[in-house]
């Protein structure tokens, strides 16, 4: 490749208290190349983007734009250098139209230039080969389309460098394919695309060059020549080797990463007895911005894992909350072991063996300033044995916590440490320790591995598998198709609040789920 890089990092280092987020990183980004940055959580990807997007200043090292050293002091300066960034979550105004969104933030105090904006919009539509209605309200578009608007906004000041931060995490398989098309088209027009992901398959499918980050360091790179000479298997092995040094010591993690875990066999569940959980005709009322449930029903048997797939925001949250008792259904019935529980509260359902592991570990799962011990008993405050006549027996509460910490291998300095100081993986272990116990019969997991590193992802998945093997009935809500295929016996798809087609998890399930996720086969 003789092309000169349009953007380069030279020895960029960024420290935060206690960690070196980026350690002496040097990278070149070239025009007409899709450069994948691969790494798990905490590898330093986000910090690197922050530096390029002008949101963070490196402590050492320099950034070169077209060979010239530059200082990117603010997001505005970043845009001025032709670097556009699309963040993981959509940062647009849902109540405005596409065009109005694109007019936001252009210059100050100038009149809105409608005609000019529309011209540029059409140029970019052509460049991206997408067709969007400029007058459509943004909120009415699919997430994939909203992302296209984000990409337009990122490219608005010129097609230079486009940074995409884990852009596929919110998309359907179809949306991922379309994004791939857009990236290839932009590559053809000489845009330097930086594509951040932690999914190996996407890295191989879309990338011309793959750079692997681990613990803040650049640990290796696969250039276009080597990459094109490899098949997917070889490339995956090579990346895993880069990430772990040698693949042998980290077999489990590598399997998790590559999505090569054991698939559960469908059809081994004994469904002759009575279902332990029966949901019928569940509907909820939604507030603005939420997706309500619409007549959702399913049966779940002991030992079974029912996977719930779907793009985030299609009613999964309401489903989990209605089952757990945090939200009352407007209609419908839930029977647990033959008993109607639709009108009971969280505590009553918990005592009957129903458990809910929320996806919002910090938002609602824990009280961050409170100790690990307190968080472990938060759902049974006042229970006999740890309280006597309402008086807290702190000695016993702490003892109970030490047991759980040992059993679930929670890495914490002590049971008195505020839970907010633990890592995401350990906070998830606190939740698992709180919810999974001998009395559990039905467990609802909502995105149990969201935001976890590989090791903890594997641990959480093992727990789910072990639970099911021990006879727990499990509802597993996840946006990661790989995870569902690895763990679930049957998979249903949530689309716009409806639970479409619960199908057995067999070969070829991906395609059918992909269709159901877009509502095409509903």
């Amino acid at each position, binding site marked *: 490749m003789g092309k000169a890089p349009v953007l380069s990092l030279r020895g960029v280092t960024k420290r935060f208290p206690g960690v070196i987020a980026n350690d002496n990183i040097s990278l070149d980004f070239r025009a007409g190349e899709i450069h994948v940055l691969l790494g798990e959580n905490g590898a330093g990807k986000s910090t690197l983007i922050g530096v390029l997007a002008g949101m963070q200043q490196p402590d050492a090292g320099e950034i070169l734009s077209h060979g010239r050293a530059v200082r990117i002091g603010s997001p505005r300066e970043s845009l001025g250098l032709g670097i556009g960034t699309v963040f993981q979550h959509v940062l647009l105004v849902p109540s405005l139209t596409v065009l109005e969104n694109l007019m936001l933030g252009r210059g100050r105090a100038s009149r809105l230039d409608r005609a000019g904006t529309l011209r540029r919009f059409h140029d970019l539509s052509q460049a991206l080969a997408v067709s969007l209605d400029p007058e459509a309200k943004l909120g009415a578009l699919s997430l994939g389309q909203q992302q296209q608007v984000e990409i337009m906004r990122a490219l608005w000041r010129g097609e230079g460098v486009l940074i995409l931060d884990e852009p596929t995490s919110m998309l359907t398989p179809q949306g991922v394919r379309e994004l791939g098309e857009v990236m290839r088209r932009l590559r053809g027009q000489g845009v330097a695309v930086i594509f951040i992901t932690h999914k190996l398959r996407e890295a191989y499918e879309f990338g011309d060059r793959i750079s692997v980050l681990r613990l803040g360091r650049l640990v290796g790179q696969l250039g276009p020549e080597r990459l094109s000479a490899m098949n997917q298997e070889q490339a995956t092995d090579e990346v895993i080797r880069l990430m772990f040094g040698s693949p042998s010591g980290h077999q489990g993690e590598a399997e998790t990463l590559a999505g090569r875990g054991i698939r559960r066999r469908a059809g081994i569940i004994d469904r002759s007895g009575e279902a332990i959980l029966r949901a019928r005709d569940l509907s909820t009322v939604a507030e603005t911005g939420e997706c309500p449930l619409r007549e959702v029903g399913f049966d779940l048997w002991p030992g079974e894992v029912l996977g719930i797939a779907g793009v985030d925001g299609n009613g999964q949250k309401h489903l989990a909350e209605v089952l757990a*008792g945090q939200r009352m259904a407007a209609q419908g019935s839930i029977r647990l072991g033959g008993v109607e529980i639709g009108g009971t509260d*969280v505590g009553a359902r918990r005592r009957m063996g129903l458990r809910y592991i929320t996806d919002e570990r910090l938002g609602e799962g824990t009280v*961050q300033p409170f100790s690990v011990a307190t968080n472990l008993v938060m759902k049974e405050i*006042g229970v006999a044995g740890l*309280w006597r006549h309402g*008086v*807290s027996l702190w000695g016993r509460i702490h003892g109970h916590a030490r047991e759980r910490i040992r059993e679930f291998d929670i890495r914490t300095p002590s049971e008195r440490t505020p839970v907010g100081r633990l890592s995401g993986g350990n906070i998830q272990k606190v939740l698992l320790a709180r919810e999974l116990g001998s009395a559990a019969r039905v467990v609802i997991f909502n995105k149990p591995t969201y935001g976890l590193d590989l090791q903890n992802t594997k641990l959480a998945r093992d727990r789910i598998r072990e639970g099911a093997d021990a006879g727990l009935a499990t509802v597993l809500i996840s946006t990661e198709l790989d995870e569902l295929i690895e763990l679930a016996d049957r998979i249903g798809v949530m689309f716009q609040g409806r639970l479409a087609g619960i199908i057995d998890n067999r070969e070829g399930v991906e395609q059918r789920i992909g269709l159901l996720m877009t509502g095409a086969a509903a």
Partner: protein
Amino acid sequence: MSRVAAGVLRTLIPIALALGAGALVLLALGADPIDYYAFVLRRGLLTWSGLQETITKLAPLLLISAGLIVAFRAGIWNLGVDGQFLLAAVVTAALGPALVGAIGRYPTLIVCALAGAAVGAAWSLLPAILKARYGLNEIITTLMMSFLGTSLANVLIKLPFKDPATTVPQTETLLVPDRLPRLFDSTIHAGVVLAVIVILLVHLLMTRTAFGLRLQVVGANPRAAVHAGLNVGRLTIATFALSAGLAGLGGAVEILGVWGTVRADWNPKFGLLAIPLVFLARFNGIAVIGFVFFFAVLLIGGESASRRMGVPTFFILVLVGLLLVFLALVEYLDHRRRERTKS
């Protein structure tokens, strides 16, 4: 360095800094800071009459602080304690003289204390329901109810409860022999002991019981409380009732122990004074006793000093304000230092 010692140091340094900055303000006012502080200390702490006054002042401040601690720990900003306090005081002052002839001294005292607590709690009912049912911000509603309560108290004194025997509008007076018993031949009344016991009980309630833990979960993360299956609405109403009830008890005790009557336009605004102290003590019931005592010394000494040295009483509030600022500053610097040593 032990944690307790570090905590004490984190409190003493801001106090020293606040007194230092206050000295500059005194110089600007044309007063000699050393003279002033010495006078305040002598008058508020080192003379027997001053010390009695200081200790007597603890009763209403501690009871209000107890109410504030319950609310603040549960994440509810009950800023209407002054209205709750005053209404309870007026009802107590009306009830006391009317009852004492019929049922005798001690039954009267008990009925009045309970009535005061009930009136305080009742005055928080509307904000409590609005918060629990509709999520209405209680800062606004309790402040509004406080204004209304203060005005209503005035109306009550001037119309139905007015003592016909006086020209100045005030309630009938509960005579000294019928008031709360005095301790050891001093002017200190038994309400002070009650207040200390109450605040210790509140501290235990919040830190050592299931009920207290539930309130703290609601306060620290209401969504986690919902997730854990707590009845947030009922806990919210219980918090308001307890908090305002304690403020009301404070009003009753102040009348039963010190005044025996309420004059129109009497409003000591103890709530406003107690709020920063409760923050300084980080909602800790034991620590708040120390802060309230320190503040009472300043208050009693400062009142005398304003007459003797011409420094306005408001200067005491300036000192408390400075203390809050320096406490926050020291906290921040300490946090930064610890962050840095960790890395």
